[in-house]
């Protein structure tokens, strides 16, 4: 087989795998368990980890689902740098001798069959450059994966002929509307005019959508030490400093988050002010749904700059929040948004449409327009407050 195994590129911060890395390993394990039964027991889940002092996390990666871990340990890899990381990961992906250390070596092996990256700041760009280097395709922001044999007829790929593509990775990505799925395939060109192989079939995976498998400390795997060779030119980016920062928008220390979405559209400025008033009343932070951060509403500069920004997006394209109380006003409930707030304690939605998906994700659904409901709600909150103060 020219193409074998599923490689997962692990990210870690100071030697701790970031959550999406373990989530990817979990999904890789589930997929390969099915694959091993259906196609070949020889193909493995292989974790790749780069860094300085990373040997320590390799066992943990095995316990979370990897059959093998290939690690490259060097002070030059302490912080992620796109150029050098791309080179090292590409070297690993093409190195036949590494495969022989964890699987029955296939003399025909050329490169991995599948490859997973995280769809975060580092992985999204790293996946792009690694796949450019390996001259193969990439689907971004994936939240569902299936391996299947597919019959394909494509104007170019098969020159209009019906052909079976075996072991094809169906990569589902939510459309920007959040209610549609687009399935992306990475297919070789079987067109005799331009036959080209495109492997690995690769994607970046949205953090928070897959579950890690339960940690099993008795799981066994093969740990492979890889010593990369560096071209001095690849080390030309210098990391001068690195400072962890608290987000300008602090959701973690708030008991409540109030978010708004496209429902502000009838009177954007007034409705945003209403949301801010409600947030003040509850000492809450303000969140938004993804379409809002694209600045689709003509509001004044002051409002757009502080409230309609990517920093405030709750969901897969932004932040995950878990406050005691979450209020979603004028938000219909696209799956990207739900993923960011579903672990909140008590959820209240304000929406005129009882058919909107957010209804299935809240504890109280207030049927109504936000501009009608929120002023009354604020009055009622204020009316109760003196009674509570008196009781204390």
């Amino acid at each position, binding site marked *: 087989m020219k193409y074998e195994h599923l490689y997962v590129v692990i990210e870690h911060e100071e030697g701790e795998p970031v959550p999406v890395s373990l989530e990817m390993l979990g999904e890789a394990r589930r997929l390969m368990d099915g694959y091993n039964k259906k196609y070949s027991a020889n193909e493995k889940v292989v974790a790749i980890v780069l860094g300085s002092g990373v040997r320590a996390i390799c066992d943990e990666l095995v316990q979370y689902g990897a059959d093998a871990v290939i690690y490259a340990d060097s002070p030059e890899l302490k912080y992620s740098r796109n150029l050098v990381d791309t080179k090292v990961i590409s070297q690993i992906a093409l190195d036949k001798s590494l495969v022989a250390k964890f699987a029955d070596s296939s003399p025909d092996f050329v490169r991995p069959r599948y490859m997973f990256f995280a769809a975060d700041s580092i992985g999204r760009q790293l996946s792009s450059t690694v796949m450019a280097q390996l001259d193969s395709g990439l689907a971004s922001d994936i939240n569902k994966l299936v391996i299947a044999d*597919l019959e394909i007829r494509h104007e170019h790929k098969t020159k209009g002929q019906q052909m079976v593509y075996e072991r094809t990775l169906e990569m589902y990505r939510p459309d920007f509307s959040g209610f549609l799925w687009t399935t992306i395939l990475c297919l070789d060109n079987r067109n005799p005019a331009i036959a080209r192989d495109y492997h690995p079939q690769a994607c970046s995976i949205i953090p928070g959508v897959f579950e890690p498998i339960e940690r099993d400390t008795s799981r066994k795997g093969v740990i492979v030490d890889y010593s990369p060779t560096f071209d001095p030119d690849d080390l030309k980016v210098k990391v001068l400093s690195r400072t962890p920062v608290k987000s300008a928008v602090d959701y973690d220390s708030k008991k409540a988050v109030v978010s708004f979405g496209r429902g502000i559209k009838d009177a954007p400025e007034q409705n945003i002010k209403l949301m801010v008033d409600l947030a003040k009343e509850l000492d809450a932070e303000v969140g938004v749904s993804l*379409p809002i951060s694209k600045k*689709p509403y003509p509001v004044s500069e002051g409002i757009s700059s502080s409230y309609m920004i990517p920093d405030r997006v709750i969901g897969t394209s932004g932040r995950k929040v878990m406050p005691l*109380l979450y209020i979603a006003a004028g938000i219909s409930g696209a799956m990207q948004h739900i993923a960011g707030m579903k672990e909140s304690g008590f959820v209240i939605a304000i929406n005129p449409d009882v058919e909107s998906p957010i*209804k299935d994700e809240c504890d109280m659904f207030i049927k109504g327009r936000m501009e009608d409901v929120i002023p009354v709600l604020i009055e009622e909150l204020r009316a109760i407050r003196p009674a509570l103060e008196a009781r204390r």
Partner: protein
Amino acid sequence: MPNLNVAVIIKLEPDFSEGNVSYNADGTLNRAETKSILGPHSAIACQAAFYARVKFGAKVSVGTMGPPNADAALAQAQLICDAEELHLYSDRTFAGADTLATAETLRAGIAKMDGKMDIVFSGHRASDGETGQTGPQTAWKLGFTFLGHVVSYDIDLERRVVRARRLISLQGVYDVIEEVEAPLPVFIAIDPSYKPSFDTVSQRLALEKYQKEAKERSADYKRHLKTFNAQQLQVDPKMVGLPGSPTIVYKVEKIPKAKASRKAEVIDGTNREQLHRVAAKIHEVLGGMVIK
């Protein structure tokens, strides 16, 4: 002669402003009914290039792959960054390109620009595809160092290095501000939070001068526009458009409704008594405390 050449790659995108965006019955974007504009992230990339124009007198070129009407986006871009040269890469051969095939066209286009590029800017991602892949893949094909999520940058012309601050979000962990230094040439994907600042009097004077120039140039943008087809770009037809695209869109379908995770009590939003109950519940959830 300016001693710094910068390029911006931009994209004509659907205008998602309320009232402009139109959807088909199946929920897909109705492209025919939706107006197209210079993408908002492309506009920010143009601002970053304009910073180099104002601060260092850089020569700016802008390129895009797209249909003939993408020249309108180039004119808008020119107005932002005072570009001297506008490139449109337009050919049926480029149609159906995924990110890798698009990057190949853009690589060839940038190679045709007047002068050897020191910095190429792109937006963070497009508002329609949203993959964020085209920028890094173009950088890789150009052989330029790629710096993503750049929130501010400066150039040491003498040492020919760029110093940039990047905002890295590691979901589930924390954000990191990273300061990096890299020798030119570099490819910078600019973060949406980028805001250029012009602090000195000389910069402000240059700003006014170049803004005026941009207005004049953009009014007559066709004079600066060069259109290239596949042959003129000297791209290998196997590497662009459909043949050069590893990926295909296999199907588009509605995401099935998830099983309800909570059982909602429906409240009538016009009923004050019911809203009173909601308010009481809110106080209860927040610990029955006045949080102010």
